[in-house]
């Protein structure tokens, strides 16, 4: 009892600004960090929808990516707070499962956003981008753009992290499949035998990492002409590295995310194409699901043929390639986040 | 003796710490060219007296007169600027720096001209040369390399460096706080010789020590401090060590001359 009082008092302090009304349906949004524009946009979407539906939303975040401790504490706070549901992008997809189970046992609806838990059915539902499809789209586009030259492409793979989180693996393998490269084990990258792959390096998903990884791979083979990147900041970094050796104009860079600076970079010809995902939609759909659950106990259904609710992905490019559906950057800018 | 004016004196110094009176109307006189030992039991206030003279403690009331002028020190740096150098018991040396660096710490010499004015370049050669001169003047020639770090020196040699620093800059008075306390027999001997060498240069010395044989060996006069003020000044030639100990512990009253 005392602990509950303390935690709710604390959360009230932490969340100064968001009013606490007892009658409203409570919901929680727990993100990996509150610094990444992707999550900022997610929070925006959730807040807007929550206001519309009269849901009282509280947001929590880890201090850094990988900070599972804070996320567990946030789940506990939400249970104590009497919330009806939790939307979570888990930092540790396996480690968070017992805390999620605790919340579900307490009668909360738990929806994984963007990142599926392991196993995926540890959450009541998952609202996410089909990351494999996102990769496949840019892979197909790159192959189609190159045409016959695709056979002799020299590909640099700029991935997320050496721990190979599932998001990174899915996009990487999707790209390779789309490009027409034999995957080996689709659950990890780095085991492919195709000689067109010059190498994989990791970027931590930011500019500095992207530049360094690109530099490293350029030393391995200066003739690289296709660059896959895990996200657009990494792509921007890779571009700087290419610019430093005057290769910026004859290398094809593809990426995934669809953040506004990324889409602008496509407009400026820095990135060839990107697969745009929709964090705002994930969050607003999530809030809707919690509202429905609070009203009459209905649970959201996954997309047909998939084990999660697919919030969609679109290929954005100003140089459409035959056989691959895409939208242009003008449309992309209307839909972008961050 | 009375015809000569003291170089450094203190009159009616009072210093209180809360309810404790450390200095109670204390007087002090140091005459030119002499070695004055200050002795007293623990808690007698001799340490407070020395701190007041070296600027480390600001007295509540009383007057300090240096070379005929009333002075007020708000920090040890003030006292140093006025010509009073103190060799602290912990020596105040930087072990990782060289002998020359230590000797000139806070008083470095810069190059002449643009190098010094604009680039603030230190004239290391000049400082090393002066350091070498000063050390040889004081018979510290066993130190071969002026650039070796102080931490490579023995305790006695370190004391020597600290004394040399004081002697290099102390224009009027040098105060030495327990210079032999941490040293062995042979090193103490060297330091006592050093004290006499400094005296021979004409600089008066205030020596604080617990070691009666050392005090009686080098001091010209002895100031005995008791219960926060000067009990008496004695001539080591007229009194024995046991007399001095008896006065400072209160076992015996001195017969004032």
């Amino acid at each position: 009892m005392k602990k509950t009082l303390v935690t709710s008092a604390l959360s009230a302090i932490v969340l100064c600004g968001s009013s606490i009304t007892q009658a409203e349906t409570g919901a929680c949004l727990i993100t990996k960090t509150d610094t990444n524009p992707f999550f900022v946009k997610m929070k925006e979407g959730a807040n807007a929808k929550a206001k519309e539906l009269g849901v009282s939303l509280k947001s929590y975040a880890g201090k850094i990516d990988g900070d599972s401790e804070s996320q567990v504490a946030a789940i506990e706070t939400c249970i104590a707070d009497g919330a009806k549901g939790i939307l979570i992008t888990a930092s540790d997809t396996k480690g968070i499962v017992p805390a999620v189970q605790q919340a579900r046992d307490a009668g909360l609806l738990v929806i994984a956003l963007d990142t599926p838990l392991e196993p995926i059915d540890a959450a009541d539902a998952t609202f996410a981008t089909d990351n494999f499809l996102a990769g496949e789209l840019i892979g197909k586009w790159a192959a189609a753009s190159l045409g016959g030259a695709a056979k002799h492409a020299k590909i640099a793979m700029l991935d997320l992290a050496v721990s190979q989180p599932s998001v990174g693996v899915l996009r990487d393998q999707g790209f390779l499949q789309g490009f027409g490269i034999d995957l080996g084990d689709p659950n990890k990258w780095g085991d492919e035998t195709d000689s067109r792959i010059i190498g994989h390096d990791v970027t931590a998903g930011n500019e500095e990492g992207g530049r360094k990884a690109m530099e490293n791979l350029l030393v391995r083979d200066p003739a690289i002409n296709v660059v896959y990147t895990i996200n657009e900041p990494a792509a921007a970094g890779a571009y700087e590295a290419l610019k430093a050796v005057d290769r910026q104009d004859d290398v094809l860079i593809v990426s995934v995310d669809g953040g506004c600076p990324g889409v602008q970079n496509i407009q400026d010809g820095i990135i060839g194409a990107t697969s745009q995902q929709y964090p705002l939609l994930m969050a607003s759909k999530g809030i809707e699901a919690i509202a429905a659950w609070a009203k009459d106990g209905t649970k959201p259904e996954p997309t047909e043929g998939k084990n999660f609710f697919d919030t969609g992905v679109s290929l954005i490019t100003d140089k459409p390639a035959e056989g691959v559906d895409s939208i242009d950057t003008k449309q992309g800018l209307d839909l972008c986040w961050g | 003796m009375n015809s000569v004016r003291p170089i450094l004196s203190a009159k009616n110094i009072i210093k209180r710490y809360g309810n404790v009176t450390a200095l109670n109307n204390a007087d002090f006189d140091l005459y030119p060219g002499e070695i004055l030992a200050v002795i007293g039991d623990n808690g007698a206030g001799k340490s407070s007296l020395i701190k007041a003279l070296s600027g480390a403690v600001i007295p509540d009331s009383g007057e300090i007169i240096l070379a005929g002028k009333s002075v007020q020190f708000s920090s040890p740096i003030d006292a140093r600027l006025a010509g009073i150098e103190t060799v602290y018991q912990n020596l105040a040396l930087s072990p990782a720096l060289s002998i020359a660096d230590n000797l000139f710490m806070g008083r470095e010499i810069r190059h002449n001209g643009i190098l010094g004015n604009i680039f603030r370049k230190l004239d290391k050669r000049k400082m090393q040369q002066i350091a070498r001169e000063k050390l040889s003047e004081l018979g510290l020639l066993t130190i071969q390399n002026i650039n070796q770090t102080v931490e490579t020196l023995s305790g006695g040699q370190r004391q020597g460096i600290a004394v040399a620093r004081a002697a290099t800059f102390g224009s009027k008075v040098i105060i030495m706080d327990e210079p032999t306390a941490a040293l062995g027999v042979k090193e103490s001997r060297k330091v006592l010789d050093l004290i006499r060498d400094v005296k021979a240069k004409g600089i008066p010395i205030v020596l604080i020590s617990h070691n009666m044989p050392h005090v009686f060996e080098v001091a010209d006069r002895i100031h005995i401090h008791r219960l926060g003020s000067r009990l008496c000044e004695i001539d080591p030639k007229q009194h024995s060590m046991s007399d001095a100990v008896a006065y400072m512990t209160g076992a015996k009253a001195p017969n004032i001359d």
Partner: protein
Amino acid sequence: MNEENLNKPQAFEAVLSESDTSTVQFTKKTSFLYSIQKLLHSNPALVPLLVLLASLVIFGAILGNKFFSPFTLTLILQQVAIVGFVGAAQTLVIITAGIDLSVGAIMVLSSVFMGQITFRYGLPAEFAVLCGFIIGGLCGFINGFLVAVIRLPPFIVTLGMWQIVLATNFLYSANETIRSQDIEQHAALLQFFGEKIKIGGAVLTYGVIAMVAVVLILHYILTSTAWGRHVYAIGDDPDAAELAGVKVKKTLISVYVITGLLCSLAGWALIGRIGSISPTAGQFANIESITAVVIGGISLFGGRGSILGMLFGALIVGVFSLGLRLIGTDPQWTYLLIGLLIIVAVAIDQWIRKVAS
């Protein structure tokens, strides 16, 4: 008693004249190991320099021309340029026996300020750069004031400052990245340190040149000016320095202010390096700078070490990271080896310090 007796040594000391006088002199041990220890003691940057040369030779032997090309070697310089700047700042603080955890955050905040002042308020880039330096200097001054005057431990002060500056950075920037192309068009000055000079295959960015220049200038200041000697003396023993006449508080504050300004310079160079301005950049700059300093043989206990060692330390990390990546090992091996280097470096530091006693 007559005077003659008094000025003679006391009777019990008479035997001293016959005793062995060697202890007073500097004892000369001549073993090989001891000579090495002494050599390292007086040349603290020697160990990292040797390690650097050895690692260059080893990776060169394994990788051949791919590694030993002007392009690759200058690439390593480019990759360590930012750590070099921040490491230089960190060196100053660590020589005073402090530590600065806020360096990376101050760097990023400065770069964000430079970007936002140009792009949000439309002010000229020159003014924006100046503001970046002011913010860095101010953060440094606050650190210095709290450490020197309020006498709080540097670890705690800069731990707090790190959080405060990082939060300010995210709040102020609203997590927005400013794109490289926008900067290039409207405020090219911000990318100044990304400009490059090519000599054959070698690529030197202005950032690299400036970083090496900063290290050399600081090396001069630390070894050849009074301020530099005071910085060492404060790290060695602040009380002794104070008594010897060093203005400890003033010097300490100036050290932290210069550290802050160097972080701003690093922030400016960072824009040149990654092209864009990203509030999430440089998250590990504080740890990386401490790593470079420690591998560079600078003592965390203060008062010892050369800033050149820091540069060698940063380069060692750069050579290892790139070399191991080129060999194709898992990047975790890099961290493992760097971890080992850190511990070995500190162990060597302790061993060298024993030369004192």
